[in-house]
């Protein structure tokens, strides 16, 4: 046993299949929608003993200048349906999905996650997000959108309500006692929730799976998001940052847990990252450059610029300098993309400054601001960087997003994982069966203390109201 005991690196994988994090022009790039792609990647990362496989959510195709955006990979499945299929062809891998708290209702979402947890033998996780854009709302009965200020109050009450539904069946309520003729306990699944966003009552259909509650994930680094994560989530997805910034985020989020009677290990911080692995550091660096160029085609560069400038820039040369005209701040050119929603005049100013300082063309600039591959190098270099990042409390692990579908993590699993295993920072094999086991989380949920941000240490199961 090595001393001192090192932190375990928690690894997750996302099949992006969308946006310009995926290179579709590479001959090795296969279908983003075929079930074979999902099975292939899930089985690869299960071989690498990853904690979980994650699928984001798509509710509206992005649009650019009033038309479907056609430059990036697009088209994806309903994520829980795919994960339910994957549960049949994997045995240990956790299965995580983003499901929106704005365009859904607690009864149905709680039921679907309880189903996935049952089907998978305790491997379900839910990334709770809210949307507030009317653009997405156009696909839904309810239309409209949620006032931005209500995002976290709705998310918190939604989650609380879901927890009440999962808790509405007690262990042993499913009797199935043929001799006595009692199939269920009287009142199994009975619930009532009266709150600001939800006022529902009746009987819940589905006894919870082995985990009781699925693992709860929160995405986002805002103050409200951090607080929500501290009170209610077990994993937080963040953006990858320079390690000093990441350490500050890590300290801040972990510090908040005590307020809610939770220990630092009750919430794992997993930034999104990508890894480019090759035989040597030089080859990896060259490959990373190539990926960046492929992700930002000349057309993509202009489209991104148009999204910030809010005007047609199709006459500009992607290999030429940035436009000297000013952005239109009210025009919405790229819809359904969260990055360019705000502060475009300021973004344009910064981009111009950067381009001037570094003498970058439009395309070079977009490549530069689009973010670099996170971990680039030989297997040894990448393993070192990941291990250091985790041991120095920049993160508890990473959600790896491959740039190729579905084979983009083959090299990582075959070449980096064994080094991490050798160092004793990544499991040689699964030691438990549920995702909670993999993440080192308590098996039992804490039904009496949930309650959302600003509601520390609530007790008493009679307190079912949220009046944020």
């Amino acid at each position, binding site marked *: 046993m090595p001393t001192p005991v090192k932190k375990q690196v928690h690894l997750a994988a996302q099949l992006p299949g969308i946006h310009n994090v995926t290179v579709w022009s590479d001959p090795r790039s296969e279908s983003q929608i075929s079930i074979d792609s999902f099975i292939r990647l899930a089985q690869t990362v299960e071989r690498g003993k990853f904690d979980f496989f994650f699928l984001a959510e798509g509710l509206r195709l992005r649009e650019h200048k009033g038309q479907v955006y056609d430059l990036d990979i*697009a088209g994806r499945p309903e994520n829980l349906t795919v994960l339910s299929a994957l549960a*049949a062809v994997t045995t240990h891998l956790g299965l995580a999905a983003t499901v929106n708290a704005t365009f*859904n209702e607690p009864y149905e979402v709680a039921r679907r996650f309880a189903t996935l947890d049952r089907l998978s033998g305790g491997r379900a996780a839910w990334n709770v997000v809210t949307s507030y854009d009317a653009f997405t709302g156009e696909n839904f009965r309810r239309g409209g959108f949620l006032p931005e200020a209500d995002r976290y109050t709705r998310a918190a009450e939604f989650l609380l309500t879901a927890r009440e539904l999962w808790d509405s069946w007690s262990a042993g309520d499913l009797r199935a006692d043929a001799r006595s003729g009692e199939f269920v306990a009287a*009142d199994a699944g009975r619930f009532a929730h009266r709150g600001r966003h939800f006022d529902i009552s009746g009987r819940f259909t589905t006894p919870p799976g082995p985990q009781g509650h699925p693992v709860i994930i929160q995405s986002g680094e805002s103050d409200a998001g951090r607080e929500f994560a501290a009170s209610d989530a077990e994993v937080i997805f963040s953006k990858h940052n320079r390690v000093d910034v990441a350490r500050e985020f890590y300290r801040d989020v972990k510090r908040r847990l005590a307020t809610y009677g939770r220990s630092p290990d009750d919430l794992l911080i997993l930034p999104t990252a990508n890894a480019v692995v090759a035989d040597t550091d030089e080859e990896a660096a060259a490959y990373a450059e190539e990926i960046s160029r492929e992700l930002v085609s000349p057309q993509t560069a202009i489209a991104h610029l148009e999204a910030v400038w809010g005007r047609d820039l199709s006459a500009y040369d992607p290999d030429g300098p940035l436009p000297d005209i000013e952005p239109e701040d009210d025009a919405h050119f790229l819809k359904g993309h969260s990055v360019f929603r705000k502060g475009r005049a300021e973004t344009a100013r910064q981009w111009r400054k950067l381009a001037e300082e570094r003498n970058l063309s439009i395309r070079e600039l977009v490549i530069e601001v689009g973010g670099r591959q996170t971990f680039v190098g030989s297997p040894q270099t990448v393993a070192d960087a990941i291990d250091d990042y985790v041991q120095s409390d920049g993160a508890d692990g990473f959600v790896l997003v491959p740039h190729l579908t579905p084979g983009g993590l083959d090299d990582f699993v075959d070449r980096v994982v064994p080094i991490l295993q050798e160092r004793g920072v990544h499991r040689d094999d699964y030691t438990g069966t549920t995702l909670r086991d993999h993440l080192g989380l308590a098996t039992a949920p804490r039904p009496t203390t949930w309650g959302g941000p600003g509601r520390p240490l609530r007790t008493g199961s009679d307190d079912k109201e949220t009046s944020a």
Partner: protein
Amino acid sequence: MTGTTGATHGTTGGTSGAAHGPTGAIDPTGTPATASDATAPLHLAVALDGAGWHPAAWREEGARPGELLDAAYWADLVIEAERGLLDFVTFEDALGLQSAAFHLPDDRTDQVRGSMDAVLLAAHLAPLTQHIGLVPTTNVTHTEPFHVAIGIATLDHASRGRAGWRPQIASRAADAAHFGRRTTPQLTEGDVTDPESISQPLRALFAEGAEVVQAARLLWDSWEDGAEIRDAATGRFLDRDKVHHIDFRGANFSVKGPSITPRTPQGQPLVVSLAHATTPYEFAALSSDVVAITPHDRAGTAATLAQVAEAVERIGRDVSERPLRILADLIVLLDDEPGAAARRKSRLDEVAGAELTSDAEIFTGTPAELADLLLDRHSTGLDGFRLRPATLPHDLTAITRSLVPELQRRGAFRTEYASTTLRGHLGLARPASRYAKAG
């Protein structure tokens, strides 16, 4: 991969045979029903629910009552159904606990209660099977049409073309309180005495359900085949001219589109509905590819087929273009020894404390007797049957290992799957997207 035109026409004749019933309605294809019936393929589906359709099934020897909400139980059942070369299996579902009463929840503890999301269950079973169609039920009153449509589309991708969908309206007003967004009609004891009076107060929900199906079908078509071009020269992944807003505006909701999910292996997953009365017949005529009906004898079969044909006529559906497959539902208790199934039913009724009642006809007998009945009914113009095993796995196994071989011996049922898609099994062609430019 998809059905042949020949098969489509053959069964169209069978379907429209109903038009030769007492009403004297015109057969739109002009094909005499009797000419094709002898050779029309027989379609067999199985409806899976809990421990079987008898309320006391869960207490039978061989039942697995503690596993009804576990994946392995369902995998065993569906693999068995596939072994019997069945066209498809259906999965019941509702957004509320089961109840012995059609219109109200009950507080009974002596029957199977509890369920899982049927779409997710079906998706889980997809990689464990290769041929059989998977048809989950979903509620269309309390759910979002967009979510439902992409869920079924995803099931079609996950099963490589074997997805169906049974849309179901909420008939229990109490389920609305699980969502708190609307109220739905509360049926009375008087309403639930016969199917026509049940469906009357639910007409608006059926109309809304038809809108949900319409929106789903538009979303399924919203990506044409070939929308994904991966054209490196122009940098375009999509041909945006082949991805369409649907701009659906119904009386109850609107959906902008397009779908987020590309066109599926079947193009249009199969829509299956259950119908007992005029309003649901019209729903089926408007919305479904397959309708399950519940006649109780030979004469009733002819009468119901005529009613369906009238509904098809009223809606103005051209069944030569869009065939409607008609299956009759039957609850079945099967034993090889003559009389044994009836004795078993009596015993089950005794355990349940009441005689089994059902919307569907209840058959007890030997597999050979059931084969006689099915072939006789098939000759009246039905396309096939959806059998509801009274107990699981007993009556399912009797279907797959005794009934099916009996039908095969008589040359009346497939001896191997000739297609890998559900549409293919049913002889239905893969339709082109309605947005695809002709020529």
